[in-house]
Each structure stands twice: as C-alpha cells, then as structure tokens.
C-alpha cells in the first residue's frame, strides 16, 4: 500500500499498532458489517453487469451459446445509418451543450453578483433542476407546437416576423386576362407601357372575405404625361362582368405592392395601391416598361417553424436541455466565485483594470478548475441523455433525434430485442466516459 493511493484520515483513526488478536478479528467483523451491503450491491448491480455487457457485446442476438460474432455488433453500430445518426447527434450534443451550459452559468453567476435579488434569480433558474427531464420534455413539447396559435415559441416568432415583414394583403389571386402572367411569385403585365400609359391589373379568384379592408369602387385613372399610372382591382362582379374592364361594383384592392420593371426586367419603381386600387409611378424616363404585382403582395403569414420536425428536433432538444442545466452550472460557478479571494479582484480594480479585463484576466483564470468540473460533468450527462429525447421527440422525429442511449434502449428493449448490439452501444458509452473516470481517480490521488 505504501506509495499507492492513501486516503489517510487524520492520524488518530489508525488503530493502535499492537492491538490484541480478539480486537483485530472484531475489527474485521465490523468492516464486513459496514461494507458488506455496499460490496454486494456494487458487485451484483455494477461490476458483474459491466463485465457481462462487455462480453455480451461480442455475441449475436441469440445469446452466448455459439453465436460469437466478434466485432460485428460494433461494425453495425458504426455503419448502420440508424446508429450513425445517433453517434452524430451525440457529437453535436457534446460539442454544444457543455460549452453553452458553462458559458451561460458563468454569465449568470457573474451578473447575479451585482443585483440585490440574486437569491430569487438563482432559485428561478435552478428550478428546472428539480423537475424530471421527462416532465421538461412534455413542457417544451407544448411550447414547440408548430401552429403559432398553439405553440408559444412560434407565437413569438409570428410577432417578430410580423414586425419585420408584414404578411401580404392577398393570400391568393389569379389574373383576369391572359396579358397578366405569373412572374417570380408575383404577376407581370405583358402589355408594354410607356410614360403616359395606364396599366390595368385585374385580379380574380379572391373570396369576398379575403378582400383587404377599406376597399372602394375601382377607378381607372386618367393618363398623366411623364407618369405611368394604373389600377389593381377585383375584376369580378356578381353576374361576371367583362374581364379587363373596370366596371361599377368592381372594387379596387388597396395595399398591393405594384412594381415597374424596365426593359431589362429590373424593378425601377414600386408603389402601393390606394383604396380605389389606383397607383402612380412618377417621372418615368422615356422607354418601354412592364408593370406588375410584386411577390410580397402574396407573402404568406408566418406559419411557424417545425421545431418538433425531423430537421429542427435536435436544436429544440438542446435548447430545452440547456434550460435544465444552466441552473446547475450557475450555482456551482457562483459558489466558486464566492470562494474567490476578493482582495485579488479589488487589487486589479484599484490598478485601473476595467470590469471586462478583471473578468477576462482574473475571474475566469481563477475559476478555471470550477469551470472544467462543470464542463466535464456536462459531457458525462450529455453522453447519457435519454429521458428528454424520449419525452420531447414525437415518434415521427425519433430517428432524427436519435442519440446513443436512446438507440440502446430501442435496440435492446423497445421491440428490438437485440442484446448484442445493445451491449455494444452500452460498452461504447462506457468507453467514452473512461477518460473522465481516469481523471477522477487522478484527482483523488492528488487530493490525498
């Protein structure tokens, strides 16, 4: 034992050097009493299964008897697209989550030092840690609903989207005459125009309830020299009417984006139609032009992102997971901060360092051990992530959200029944945490 790992507690604990034999035996009896249950539990539930799983990973689906497959199970894990997705996703988790969780925790820990209600803030951010990852999955699944009417996140997205680009005034419309044709999402009048001309942009196929509010009787504007005027209107009245002619009872369409293209097709002017549907391009140089309805007129309202769909499910999971663990990181880092020598910080401030310099050059380096503990803890957590994937990813997205722990469960238990491949995934997970295992032991040795 000498020179090895010694966890010597304070000297007094050592037994007297020449204790009598009876005492010696009872001492070992005591050890057996105190340590017995632990050794049984760790032996049966952890050590034996670990050996079993590693051995089992080299055998096929049917069991140990005569089904030695060598490294076939591992080959499957690294080649079948189902498992490769899981490995890739786990790599994404490892690349994103520990860094974000540590950075956010550091940020929160430093910022809360400057407010008076830091306890309340920390409690709120830490709260998700007490909730099961499963309930968190359910919670976020409600928030992520694609319909902006139902999912809070897409509802916020709609507010933001409406602020940047308003949805078009028309959802759908078709030209009333063949001279108006589809063009890049909008419509373009083929009839060439010259300054002093008038463009007639008649549209049909608009249901009365879809007409923009405030529409008035359409008016065909009089030609103006040097300008190109026009009207965009609902070229339909009860009974039909004549296509391409502005008639009584036919309404102008307000708010339509009208664009003037030059002969090369470039948009040179754009305007918005009035309540009677009229618009005017002023001071148009001599030349040949085409007028048309811009694509933005038909811009669809924000339909929401499919957070739970195959392409966004992993980012959606990462966000929810970071929401859980930011509190952990913040609390651990805050404890590290409060244990930091204040005089060092004060000294650097007195020396004229800015807050940023103090943070970057003093706080972070002094916190490095704590930060690395948080980071490593998160790597381990993320490698084993399971519950939240199970709860948050709808069945249709599960194959895209796949991670190793999830794939292991599906393969071995949930209908899969393949213990060979399942064992190989478990062994792979174990292999991935071995560096941390070694690190823990080294740290323990150093401590003693």
């Amino acid at each position, binding site marked *: 034992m000498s020179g090895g790992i010694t966890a010597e507690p304070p000297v007094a604990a050592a037994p007297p050097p020449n204790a009598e034999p009876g005492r010696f035996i009872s001492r070992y009896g005591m050890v057996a009493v105190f340590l017995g249950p632990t050794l049984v539990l760790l032996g049966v*539930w952890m050590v034996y299964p670990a050996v079993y799983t590693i051995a089992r990973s080299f055998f096929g689906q049917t069991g140990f008897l005569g089904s030695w497959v060598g490294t076939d199970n591992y080959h499957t894990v690294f080649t079948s697209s189902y498992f490769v997705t899981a490995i890739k996703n786990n790599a994404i988790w490892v690349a994103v989550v520990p860094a974000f969780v540590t950075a956010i925790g550091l940020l929160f820990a430093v910022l809360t030092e400057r407010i008076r209600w830091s306890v309340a803030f920390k409690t709120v951010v830490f709260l998700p840690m007490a909730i099961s990852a499963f309930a968190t999955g359910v919670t976020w699944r409600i928030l992520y609903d694609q319909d902006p009417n139902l999912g809070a996140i897409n509802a916020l997205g709609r507010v933001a989207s409406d602020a940047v680009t308003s949805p078009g005034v028309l959802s759908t419309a078709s030209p009333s005459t063949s001279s108006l044709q589809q063009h890049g999402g909008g419509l373009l009048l083929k009839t060439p125009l010259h300054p002093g001309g008038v463009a007639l942009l008649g549209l049909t196929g608009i249901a009365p309830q879809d007409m923009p509010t405030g529409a008035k009787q359409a008016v065909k504007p009089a030609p103006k020299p040097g300008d190109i005027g026009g009207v965009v209107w609902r070229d339909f009245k009860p009974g039909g009417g004549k296509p391409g002619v502005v008639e009584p009872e036919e309404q102008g369409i307000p708010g339509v984006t009208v664009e003037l293209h030059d002969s090369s097709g470039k948009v040179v002017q754009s305007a918005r139609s009035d309540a009677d549907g009229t618009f005017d391009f002023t001071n148009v140089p001599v030349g040949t032009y085409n007028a048309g309805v811009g694509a933005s007129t038909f811009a669809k309202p924000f339909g929401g992102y499919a957070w739970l769909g195959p392409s966004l499910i992993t980012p959606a999971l990462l966000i929810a997971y970071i929401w859980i663990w930011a509190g952990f990181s913040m609390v651990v880092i805050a404890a590290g901060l409060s244990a930091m020598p204040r005089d060092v910080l004060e000294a650097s401030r007195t020396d004229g360092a800015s807050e940023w310099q103090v943070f970057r050059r003093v706080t972070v380096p002094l916190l490095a051990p704590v930060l690395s503990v948080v980071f490593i803890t998160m790597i381990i957590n993320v490698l084993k992530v399971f519950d939240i994937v199970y709860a948050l990813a709808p069945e249709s997205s599960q194959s895209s959200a796949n991670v190793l722990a999830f794939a292991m469960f599906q393969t071995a238990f949930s209908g899969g029944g393949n213990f060979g491949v399942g064992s190989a995934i478990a062994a792979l997970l174990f292999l991935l945490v071995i560096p941390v295992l070694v690190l823990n032991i080294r740290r323990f040795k150093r401590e003693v």
Partner: protein
Amino acid sequence: MAAAAEPMPLPGARDSLGSRIVRVLTRGPLNILLAVIGLLWLVPTIGLFITSILPVSSLGTSGWWQIFRHPSLATWSNYDALFHNSGLLTALKTTAYIAVGNTLLVVIIGAMAGYAFAWLDFPGRDWIFVIVIALLVVPIQMALIPMFRLYDQVGLFDTWYGIALFHTAFGLPFAIFLLRNFFVGLPADILESARIDGASEIVIFLRLILPLGLPAIASLAIFQFLWTWNDLLVALTFGQNTTPITVWISGQLREFATSIDIIAPASFISLVIPLAVFFAFQRYFVQGLLAGSVK
C-alpha cells in the same frame, strides 16, 4: 478579519450622490435584463401549469396564454378526473415506494460504507475506495441488459423494490464519495475519546457519526429522492405493470394532442412533489451538489 470586512462598501464615506446615481443607472439595464431572463426561465413551467387547467376543447384552437384574455376558462376538471384515475393513483404510489425506499437504502448503506472508508482501518481500503470512485461515472446503460435477464430469473422484474435496488446500487458510489469526504472532516478527538471509553463502532456510528453527519446525509437524501422520483429509464426497463408516474405518462405520449388533458396535469403533479422538496430543503440540495461536483 480584514479580508472579511473588505467587500463591504462604505456607504457615505466614499460614495458621493453622483456616483450612486451613476451606479443605479448602470445597474438598471442589468436588473431589467436579469428580470427578463428570470421570466423566460419561468415561462415553460407556467405554460405547463396553465395548459393543465384548460379544457382540452379550448387547447385545440389557441395556446395556453389565451387564459390571460379569458380567465374564466380555467378549470380543475382535468385534475378532478385524474384524481379519480386509478392508474395515476397507483403510479403515484409506486413512485413514492421507489423513491422513499431507495432513499432510505442509499442513506443507510452509504453512511455505513462512508464511515468504514473514513474511520475504519483495513487492508485494501484505499483500493476499494478507488473502485467506488471509478464506478461514479459508469453509465446506467452498462447494467440494463444483464440486470434485465437476472431480474427475470430471480423474480425482481416488475417490482418496485427491484427498481429501487437498481437505483440504490447506482446511487451508492456518489453517496459513499459524498459521505466519506464529510465524515473524514469530523473532529478525530471526539471519535477517539469515544473509542477509549469503550464504545463499539456501531454505537459510535449511530450516536456520533449520524448526528454529526446530518447536513451531508440530508443533502444526499434529497438528491436521491429527486433522482429516483424523476427517473424514467430504469423504471421503463424493469417495470411492466409496476410503473412510476413518468412511465405512466409516457404511455400517453403517442396521442399527445388529444391526451393533453391527461399529460399536462399528470406532468404537473409529477413535478409538484420534487419542487416542494426542493423548496423545503434547497440549502441541503445545493450543498450536496457542490460537494459532489466541486470537491
């Protein structure tokens, strides 16, 4: 002493009115920023709760925030129905059995082992402790398949104590690590004088170690309770009809939108008890967390 007094700013002495105004102005945006972040952190849980008190008919057309416009929609009928649902009640009972049984086992067995590693001397002690540290990070996945087979053979499959025992084994390395480190720090002279007075190790353990180690034991107990209460994977693997609440809810996930009147309130019920435990014993919880990760 000087260091302890230093962080205290001396108001009035150095702070002029002007510098105080400047500080409030610069701290204003920070307060607002953190208030917004805090609110954002609360929104998911609030959303779950509001969803749980809305009738399923109104959730098909509009999100939970409709309650701010129509507060009268709120109803306890979802909860009412759930508390008459024998499946949920059984699941809650199973969860409590697993969580309480496991917590007791981990605390008792872990404290005994922690004491042995800290204060008993026997050959190989440090090597066994190194193995315990090594087991700290072994993924649960490593044991699922072999224990599934073994449980099946010995009749532990689909029992609450089978699930609790599995959690106990996987909780022990952390428990021993935490308690051993705490016990080592207890004053040696108290233990030594008890030994000289002829107290047996069992008496020392019960009369001295357990009371003195209470803060660490409390942290551990809360940790274990939350950990097992919130578990999904172990119960999903080793239970079939014996299901804790997480597994019971997961059975409804397939029809998420139409079963939301069960899923949302049941999820909220499942998190009320951990939250209550967390708020009641927050200090111990955080201490355990720090002891487990920083040291």
